[in-house]
């Protein structure tokens, strides 16, 4: 177990610096005294490079990551991050180029963007791609703005409703609301798909579009996808594809061909740019020819042998400064060029095979939310017949003791006690078997003695944290006095020798 690492502010000591900076080599100019800060940068630490390096190395060791173990976070798609990507993105011609330099002096970067646009378009069947959105949620935001602009241009001003299935990511309804749309929820049917009757009852001349994740957030392919698209289009609405689960269908089906009009690609999921502890992501968007004039700018176009940046003529505007998260684009381009069309198809085949393997191995112990072939992820319920008091959260925390990152818990919210597992194509059968063993052992432990689960984790850097207290009295920045108080008020601990630890 790792030892406690104090906040870096407690390591600070007067007069130290951790960077070797140049000396002033020009005459000093007069400073506007009345505008200078007068607090001596109070609160900024003073540390050597050695101390800073040790501090951040130590805290890094208190993190679980994909390079240390299986990370079956459903919907987040935690697959291996290829190392060549990191070298590629750091080439000086990419990492040290200014976004506003003359395009004539950035032709390599623009060519890479142009090619990536065309690869993403080809994989999804769309006509045009914009790489500007910085994350999936921003891709969604762009898409709903595009829908709004498209309808308005046709005089269809009354289309102010966005339909969103109850199993959708929280970003979908939040996005629609941000654009000023009314969110109308569509129920899931008994097989985990969009309920067609409910959908029909909610379609109207007010429908701007349907936001659909396919495969959906239950890990299931929409059986009636073509029928859904037909109904939405007949009602005058548009089909938005949340591309969070694109990893399951590379080379299997092109979203455009089943009726989507617009989608976003999470490059950090499907195209394996690293998640970085929460970002950066990249939420490139693709669409049909009819919607292309509205895309957020800028898009790279080719004029003869020259690449140029251009804002589409009826663009909804920019959603970010400059040209998108370019460093992520380099990594995604590298991934696609490494694998090619056949390699990408293998990705989806293996992702789906792995998920179905876990489904059948875990099904005897953990109820499956929907008993059918899944795509790249499977949703189980943390409800154990032999231990009814067990909760998904307890199962998740105990998994940590067995060396696994827990799956996504309590999502989708339409499934009680949901445990959403996505092994990804890069996971090995050997690891998945070990994961299955751990899950089965936990179920046995729950039946014998729930306190084993309730006390978990026991092997992590910290034990279960008081999240309620953190929200009730938020401490959002370091303060010496508040930290002292925190320690004093902490609850009595279970003596260490009474904790159940797993035996490997």
């Amino acid at each position, binding site marked *: 177990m790792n030892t406690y690492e104090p906040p870096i502010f407690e390591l600070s000591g007067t007069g130290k610096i951790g960077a070797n900076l140049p000396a002033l080599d020009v005459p000093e100019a007069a400073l506007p005294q009345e505008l200078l800060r007068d607090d001596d940068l109070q609160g900024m630490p003073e540390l050597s490079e050695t101390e800073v390096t040790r501090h951040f190395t130590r805290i890094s060791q208190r993190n679980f990551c994909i390079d240390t173990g299986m990370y079956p976070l459903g919907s987040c798609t935690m697959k291996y991050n290829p190392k060549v990507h990191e070298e590629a993105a750091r080439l000086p011609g*990419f990492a040290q180029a200014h976004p*506003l330099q003359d395009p004539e002096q950035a032709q390599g*970067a623009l060519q890479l963007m142009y090619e990536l646009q065309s690869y993403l378009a080809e994989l999804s069947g769309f006509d045009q791609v914009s790489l500007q959105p910085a994350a999936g949620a921003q891709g969604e935001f762009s898409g709903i703005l595009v829908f709004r602009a498209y309808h308005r241009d046709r005089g269809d001003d009354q289309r102010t409703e966005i339909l969103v299935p109850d199993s959708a990511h*929280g970003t979908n309804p939040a996005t629609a609301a941000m654009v000023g749309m009314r969110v109308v929820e569509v129920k899931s049917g008994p097989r985990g798909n969009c309920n067609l009757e409910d959908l029909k009852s909610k379609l109207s001349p007010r429908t701007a579009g349907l936001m659909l994740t396919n495969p959906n957030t239950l890990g299931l392919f929409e059986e009636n996808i073509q029928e859904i698209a037909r109904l939405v289009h007949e009602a005058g609405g548009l089909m938005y594809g949340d591309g969070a689960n694109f990893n399951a269908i590379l080379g299997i089906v092109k979203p455009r061909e089943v009726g989507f009009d617009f989608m976003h690609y999470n490059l950090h999921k499907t195209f394996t740019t690293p998640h970085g502890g*929460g970002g950066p992501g990249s939420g490139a968007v693709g669409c049909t020819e009819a919607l292309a004039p509205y895309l957020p700018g800028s898009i790279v176009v080719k004029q003869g042998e020259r690449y140029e940046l251009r804002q589409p003529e009826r663009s909804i505007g920019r959603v970010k400064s*400059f040209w998108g998260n*370019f460093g992520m684009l380099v990594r995604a381009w590298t991934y696609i060029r490494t694998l090619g069309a056949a390699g990408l198809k293998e990705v989806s085949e293996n992702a789906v095979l792995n998920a179905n393997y876990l489904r059948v191995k875990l099904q005897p112990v953990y109820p499956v939310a929907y008993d059918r072939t899944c795509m790249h992820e499977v949703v189980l319920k943390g409800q154990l017949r032999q231990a009814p008091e067990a909760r998904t959260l307890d199962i998740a925390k105990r998994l940590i003791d067995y060396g696994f990152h827990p799956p996504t818990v309590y999502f989708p919210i339409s499934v009680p006690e949901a445990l959403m597992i996505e092994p990804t*194509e890069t996971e090995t059968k050997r690891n998945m078997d070990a994961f299955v063993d751990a899950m089965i052992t936990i179920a046995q432990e729950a039946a014998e003695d729930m306190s084993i689960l309730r006390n978990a984790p026991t092997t992590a850097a910290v034990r279960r944290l008081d999240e309620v207290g953190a929200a009730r009295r938020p401490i959002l920045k370091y303060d010496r006095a508040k930290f002292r108080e925190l320690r004093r008020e902490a609850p009595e601990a*279970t003596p260490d020798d009474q904790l159940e630890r797993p035996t490997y």
Partner: protein
Amino acid sequence: MSHYISNTDQDRRAMLDAIGASNIAELFEVVPEEVRFPHVELPPPLSEAELLRELNRLAGRNANTQTHRVFLGAGAYNHFVPTAVDALLRRAEFYTAYTPYQPEISQGTLQAIFEYQTLICALTGMDAANASHYDGATAMAEAAVMALNSTRNKHSIVVAPTVHPQYRMVLRSYLQGLGIKIVGDEDPAASLEDVLAQVDSSTAALIVQTPDFLGQIHDLKPLAERVHAAGGLLIAQVDPVALGLFQTPGAAGADIVTAEGQSLGIPLGFGGPYLGIFACKEQYIRRMPGRLAGATTDLDGQVGYVLTLQTREQHIRREKATSNICTNQGLMMLASTIHMCLLGKHGLRHVARLCYHRAHYAAAEIARLPGYELVTPEPFFKEFAVRAPRPVAEINRALAQRGIIGGYDLKADYPQLGDAMLLCVTEMNTKADIDALVAALKELA
């Protein structure tokens, strides 16, 4: 089979047997047959050696800070990044981790966020900061949304024309569905006094940038007083590097502070990924979009960190959330945290001084040249606008031939300035670099 996939054919056979399928294709039978397994036309796969050759070829076609002396800023800055920043960033425990949903095994990320929040508060003089937005522009736009949600019956945002032109475009994108009026920047030549005249009882927020897009530093105090008197909030868009030397927006009375954090440890990267800094006064914390880390204790009484106040966020509030931000700029947040810790109190002040004095030296030398005129009034920080004797594009082309990336052409955004260029000088531009620029500009007059 790709070298990223670890299962053998035998493993796959065993898994298929367990599933009860005869082959992998069978798993996709739910996909309508007529669209299943389409033809996908992509270039053939490359070996790693071929790939690196092609990447080097593409990268080699871009001018950059190692091939050119860069005097271009305009929202993306060439600042020094200590080597230790990237060395630590490349630890797999940081860059291959996900959002810290399970705090017990994500203490590294959570502690870094907590320290980042503390550093941003110290730098800006504000009470609370979140775990970052996509970039400075989106942070500013979301600040406007937050101001609208924090004030009553207000339906307009006043924005100065000296706010970064691209940021103002993003602001308009973000608010276009909400029926909000954006005023103040219709005339690119409008002064801050003209802009203030538009603040009235319908104003949810006044947005001002300092140093502004043309480089000038503004005193935020009188602006805060004016907008507060009208019942609105002051949103200050700032340069975090300037805060090493100049008045904090917190001390001046700003309610929300946003900034582009790229200057703090993040390479130019052809425009991204960058870092949106977002901080506010205490009373607005529960309306702040994005993630927050808070300190708490575990069952043993040990201090630890968790994501907190999550009920504000989209995964709980769904359509009632006021922002959809989910993935943020976690790794960039970490870079700037490490950067600020390395520079510390003394380094941050020193870098600000280097920028200020070198920029003033460059401005004075250029202003002395026949045909050139300094346009940005004092006080300015590291950027300044210069009226030039010839079209800026022409000058820049000639500078490029001399290994110099010149300034930003202001003509499209600020036509009243005529042929003017925005130049940027940082601690990366030595006196020798500046002298080379001045000599080249003299030749081109």
